């Protein structure tokens, strides 16, 4: 090959690898936008019959909404996988028990996270619940690093911490009021908050492991298949025992309200595609970075809610939002060769190893 041809290949190669990393970030950001948007139907549905009249029975209302949400997401994902022509691959992947089994704990962890965040809302408050959920990338990044050597550099760790702090600052106005007003039920609420942090963090780390050997679109559909199965086979019978027939009357009146159907459709689409984007980002930029960028859902949720409710966010929102954006830039501007292969795995001939052995002047940027 001539020098010019070699230079051209090298240029196209580095453009291709940059695009690979950029798409990882684009997918994670898409997840954040959709996750934030999910809160609009997510709040609106509590103002619809029968849920609006269930102030004294918030947990049952939240339970029914969460189950309907999971079912709607699964239906949206089935359509998505069919459109992509991957339905056959969904069945083939499910038949590989050593691969598909990972999506069961992933689904369970995600399910405990969402249920924990609801408990946190019920017993402490919405702001506390939001802050708790935003901390999950710390658990995810830590687990991915310890479990399969994901490269969490100092710069990446700093970026993750800055993004998460930005999210926490945003929700401070409500936080302290909730702490003082939490009362005796507070402890249960804090347990719920911890479930959200650990649940979503671990889900990402487990998904990162499973996605090594399976497709993201198929993987996320398997994960929701597991979640819906756990809701229907385990959680619904327990709720039936605890709530009695009120469970079924609530489901019945919810399904009799056309607005609930519309909102559940919106919940399924936003949550479903937020999850698709989340899973697509993990193989490209890793679980720690993917989760941290996705944690921008906190600021996005407030933007979406401000648009729909016309309530202006507080000054803390500006400060926290700026912090979150700054943290994203810290992650995004990391050296491309660090981001190109996201694992520090032993490999005799990997590019990463060659670079570690090379002199600093030869390292590509």
């Amino acid at each position, binding site marked *: 090959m001539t020098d010019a041809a070699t230079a051209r290949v090298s240029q196209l190669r580095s453009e291709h690898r940059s695009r690979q990393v950029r798409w990882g970030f684009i997918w994670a950001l898409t997840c954040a936008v959709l996750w934030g948007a999910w809160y609009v139907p997510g709040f609106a549905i509590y103002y619809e019959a029968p849920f609006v009249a269930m102030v004294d029975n918030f947990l049952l209302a939240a339970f029914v909404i969460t189950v309907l949400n999971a079912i709607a997401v699964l239906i949206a994902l089935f359509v998505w996988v069919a459109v992509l022509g991957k339905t056959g691959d969904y069945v*083939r992947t499910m038949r590989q028990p050593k691969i598909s089994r990972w999506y069961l704990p992933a689904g369970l962890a995600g399910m405990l996270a969402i249920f924990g965040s609801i408990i946190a809302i019920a017993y402490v408050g919405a702001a506390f619940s939001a802050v708790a959920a935003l901390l999950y990338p710390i658990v995810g990044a830590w687990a991915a690093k310890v479990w399969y050597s994901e490269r969490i550099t100092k710069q990446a760790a700093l970026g993750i911490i800055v993004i998460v702090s930005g999210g926490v600052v945003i929700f401070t106005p409500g936080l302290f009021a909730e702490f003082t007003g939490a009362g005796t039920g507070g402890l249960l609420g804090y347990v719920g908050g911890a479930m959200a942090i650990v649940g979503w963090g671990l889900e990402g780390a487990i998904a990162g492991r499973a996605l090594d050997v399976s497709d993201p679109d*198929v993987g996320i559909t398997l994960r929701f298949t597991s979640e819906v199965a756990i809701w229907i086979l385990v959680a619904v019978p327990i709720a039936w025992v605890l709530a009695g027939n009120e469970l079924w009357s609530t489901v019945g009146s919810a399904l009799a309200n056309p607005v609930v159907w519309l909102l559940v459709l919106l919940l399924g689409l936003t949550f479903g595609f937020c999850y698709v984007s989340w899973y697509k980002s993990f193989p*490209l930029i890793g679980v720690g970075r993917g989760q941290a960028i996705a944690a921008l859902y906190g600021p996005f949720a407030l933007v979406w809610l401000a648009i729909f409710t016309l309530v202006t966010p507080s000054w803390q929102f500006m400060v926290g939002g700026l912090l979150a954006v700054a943290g994203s830039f810290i992650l995004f501007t990391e050296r491309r060769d660090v981001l190109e*292969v*996201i694992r520090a*795995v032993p490999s005799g001939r990997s590019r990463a190893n060659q670079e570690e052995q090379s002199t600093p002047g030869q390292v590509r940027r």
Partner: protein
Amino acid sequence: MAEIHMKGYMLQLLARNGDMWDYEVADDVMSTYGLSGDYWYGTVRLTLTDLYAGGLLDELEATIDPEKSLGVEKVLFRYGLNDFGRERMQQSGLMEVTR
């Protein structure tokens, strides 16, 4: 039609054949699963990118050959399975004993 899912099949293909160019992998996958067209070609290349970013494959060589990439000047990669990739395959029940 292979019984295994596509990403698993691609790993097995690389384990069996050694190093392969991305278009060779795409051709094999598409003929095995009875697929055709740019969409599936792109899907296979994207899956290879996932596997590379995840550290299961090594990139051994890059080149340009418009004839191999539907007339467009596109960078092509030759990939090889590495030890981590083999380890993941073993853990996932994807390693064939003999074939």
